C-alpha cells in the first residue's frame, strides 16, 4: 500500500506545485519558488513549552474534529468530556474510521481539511509519515514515553496499547491453556478462535505474537505462519470469531483478542458465561495505537492541546479506566480496574515491535500469506 499511496502523493505534489507556481507567476511579479509556499504555518507550536498560548489558541478555535476516536472506544467519551470542560472547548465531532481511512482522508482533504486529530494502529505510522500528513508536536511528558513508542520529531506518539490475551470459557474448556504451545494439544480440538489475519489488525497481531512465541521477530514472522498452519492441520483452529456474540453463544470457547476487549466482554457476560483471561506465557504482544495530528488541521491548537491532555497522567488514567494500557510508565491503574486484570507480573511476556518499518512489511506478509499458505485457499 505504501508504494501506491506514495505514487499518489507524488502526483499530488506535482499538481499542487504546478498550480502554486502558475498562480504565483500570474499574480506576483516578484516570483518566489513554490517551495516557499508549501511550508506549514510558522506560528504553530511543536512542543508544549508555552501552554498559555496553546490554551488561548485552542479556546479561540473552540472546536475539535477527530477521526477514529468515538465515545464508546477505550473510555474516550469521558476523555472528550473532561478535556472539553477542563479547557472550555465548546464543540467536538468524530467520524469513526479505520486507520487507513483516516490517513487517506487527511490526504484527500488537504485542500479542504476537516479533521484535526486521529488515532491509528501503529502499523500505519510509516504510511502516515511517508505520505506526510502529520504535524509535529511533542507534549510535556514526551521524555517519559518509551523510544519505540514515539517518532523522533514528534510526528506520532503511542497513546495507549492493548495486550493480546486468551479468553477462555471455563464452562466448556478444562484445563485452561497458558501458552501458544499448549493450544496445539488434542484437548483443544476445534477450540481456538482468532480474528481474520488478512482483514483485522487483531488477527494479524495474533500471528505476530505466535511468531515471537516460536523464535521469530519483526524481521521474520514465518514461524508464526508455520505455527498456525500446524494449528489448522491438527484441527484446533475454529473458524468462529472472538467477538461478544460468539462468546455469549458458547461458540467461541478460546478466543485470542486484546485485553481491553476481553475485559469489556467479560463484564457484559457476567452471570451468563464463566470466562478466564490469560496472558500467554511464551509470548504476548502489545498492540499500540498512535496519535496523529493533521498537518492541515483546521483547529491546530485544539489538536495539540488534546494530544497533550491524552498523554498527561490525567488522560492516561482515563484510558486505564477503559481497560487500555497507558503508555506512560508511572501511571497508576485505578484499583477496581487492576483487580479485574491478570496480575501485573503476567504481563512480563508482552513483547513490543521496536522497528515499525520492518513491522509493516511483516504485517503485509501475514495478510498476504494467511489465505494461500495457512488455510490453503
Amino acid at each position: 500500500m505504501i508504494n501506491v499511496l506514495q505514487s499518489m502523493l507524488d502526483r499530488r505534489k506535482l499538481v499542487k506545485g504546478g498550480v502554486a507556481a502558475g498562480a504565483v507567476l500570474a499574480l506576483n511579479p516578484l516570483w518566489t519558488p513554490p517551495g516557499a509556499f508549501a511550508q506549514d504555518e510558522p506560528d504553530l507550536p511543536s512542543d508544549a513549552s508555552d501552554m498559555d498560548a496553546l490554551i488561548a489558541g485552542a479556546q479561540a478555535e473552540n472546536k475539535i474534529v477527530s477521526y477514529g476516536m468515538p465515545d464508546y472506544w477505550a473510555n474516550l467519551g469521558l476523555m472528550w468530556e473532561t478535556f472539553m470542560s477542563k479547557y472550555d472547548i465548546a464543540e467536538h465531532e468524530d467520524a469513526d474510521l479505520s486507520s487507513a481511512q483516516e490517513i487517506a482522508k487527511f490526504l484527500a482533504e488537504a485542500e479542504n481539511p476537516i479533521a484535526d486529530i486521529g488515532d491509528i494502529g501503529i502499523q500505519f505510522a510509516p504510511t502516515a509519515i511517508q505520505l506526510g500528513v502529520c504535524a509535529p508536536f511533542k507534549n510535556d511528558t514526551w521524555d517519559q514515553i518509551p523510544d519505540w513508542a514515539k517518532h523522533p520529531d514528534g510526528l506520532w506518539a503511542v497513546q495507549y496499547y492493548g495486550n493480546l490475551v486468551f479468553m477462555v470459557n471455563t464452562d466448556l474448556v478444562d484445563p485452561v491453556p497458558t501458552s501458544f504451545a499448549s493450544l496445539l494439544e488434542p484437548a483443544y480440538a476445534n477450540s481456538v478462535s482468532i480474528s481474520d489475519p488478512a482483514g483485522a489488525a487483531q488477527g494479524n497481531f495474533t500471528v505476530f505474537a505466535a511468531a515471537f512465541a516460536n523464535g521469530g521477530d519483526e524481521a521474520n514472522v514465518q514461524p508464526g505462519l508455520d505455527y498456525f498452519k500446524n494449528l489448522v492441520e491438527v484441527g484446533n483452529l475454529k473458524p468462529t470469531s472472538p467477538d461478544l456474540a460468539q462468546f455469549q453463544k458458547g461458540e467461541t470457547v478460546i478466543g485470542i483478542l486484546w485485553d481491553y476487549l476481553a475485559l469489556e466482554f467479560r463484564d457484559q457476560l457476567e452471570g451468563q458465561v464463566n470466562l478466564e483471561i490469560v496472558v500467554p506465557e511464551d509470548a504476548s504482544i502489545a498492540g499500540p495505537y498512535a496519535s496523529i495530528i493533521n498537518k492541515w488541521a483546521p483547529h491546530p491548537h485544539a489538536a495539540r492541546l488534546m494530544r497533550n491532555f491524552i498523554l498527561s497522567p490525567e488522560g492516561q488514567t482515563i484510558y486505564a479506566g477503559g481497560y487500555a494500557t497507558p503508555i506512560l510508565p508511572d501511571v497508576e491503574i485505578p484499583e477496581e480496574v487492576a483487580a479485574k486484570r491478570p496480575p501485573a507480573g503476567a504481563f512480563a511476556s508482552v513483547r513490543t515491535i521496536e522497528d515499525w518499518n520492518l513491522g509493516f512489511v511483516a504485517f503485509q506478509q501475514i495478510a498476504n500469506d494467511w489465505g494461500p499458505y495457512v488455510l490453503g485457499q
Partner: protein
Amino acid sequence: MTQQSLSPSSQPITLAPHDPITLDRVRRPRAPRWLSALPLPLLPFLIFCVLLEIVPVIVLIRDSLRVQGLGAFTFANYQVIADPLFARALGNSILISLGTAVLGAVVGGLVAAAIVSGSERGRRLSLGLVAVTSNFGGIPLSFAFIALLGTNGFITLLLRESFGVRLYPGTFSLYSWTGLTMVYFYFQLPLMILIFTPAIARLKPVWREAAATLGAPDWYYWWRVGLRVMAAPFIAALALLFANALGAYATAYALVGGNLNILPIQIGRYIEGDLNYDPGKASALSLILAVFMAVGISIAYTLTQRSQKWLS
C-alpha cells in the same frame, strides 16, 4: 404580474365557455413531449433507482480506474483478479452460487409443483409461509443456524445428549462449505418456490387432457410437453438464484468470517479491513462480480420473455 405576461393566457377567459369550436382553438399550455412520456407516478421510483443504483455503479466504475480509488488513472486494479487467491475466490463464489442455485431450483421446483397440485387452501397457506421465510436472511439467518447447529447449538446438543451422536469435532461443521451451502439453500429455496409457482400454475390443463385423450400416459405427457414448456422458466429461475447467491456477503461473513475464500469477503477486506484498505481494488472486484450477476439476470430475462409465448 405584468399586463404583458397575462395577455396570451388570459385570452381563453374572454371566450364563451360552452362553445366547443372556440375551446378547441384555445392553446392550452402543454408539457413538453419528453415530460408527458414520463409516467409521473413512477418518478419517485426512478429517482430512487438513479440515486441508489445508477450513480453508485458510475462511482464504482470511476473508482475502479483510479489508484486507491482516488488517485491517478490506472487499469492496474483489475489485475488483482490474476492473483490466484482472488481467481480462486471468484471460482469458489461461482461454484457455491451455482451449486445452491441448482439445489434450490430442483427442490424448489418440486415443492412448487406439489403446491400447485394441492388444494387452494393449502396453496395459500404454504405460499404465505414461503413468503415469510424468503424474507429471513443476512446476519440473523446465520445466527439462527449457529444457534441450531453450531458447536453448542440446540440440535447439536440434542443429538449428543439424547442420541449419543457427536457432530463436533469431525463429523460435521457448520463453519465449512457444507454449512455455508445449507445456509444459502435456506434462502434459495423460498425464492425458487415464489418465482416458480406462478409459472407452473400457468401450465394449461387442456394440454394434459389432450394428451390423455390421445392415450399418452402421465410420464409421457411430462416428458414431451410439461418439462419442455417448463424448461425456459426453470432455467430463468435458476439464473436468478445464481445471481442472488453470488452477492451474498453478510450471511457468509457472519458464518465463516475470513475462513472461506469467496469474492464478497475478499472485497470486504479491501473496504473494511485494517490492513489492505484499497477502495480501487474493491471497486474493480465488485464490477467483476457484477458482470457475472448481470449474465445471470440477462439469461433469466431473455428466457422469461421467451416462455411468455407458451404460457400467456
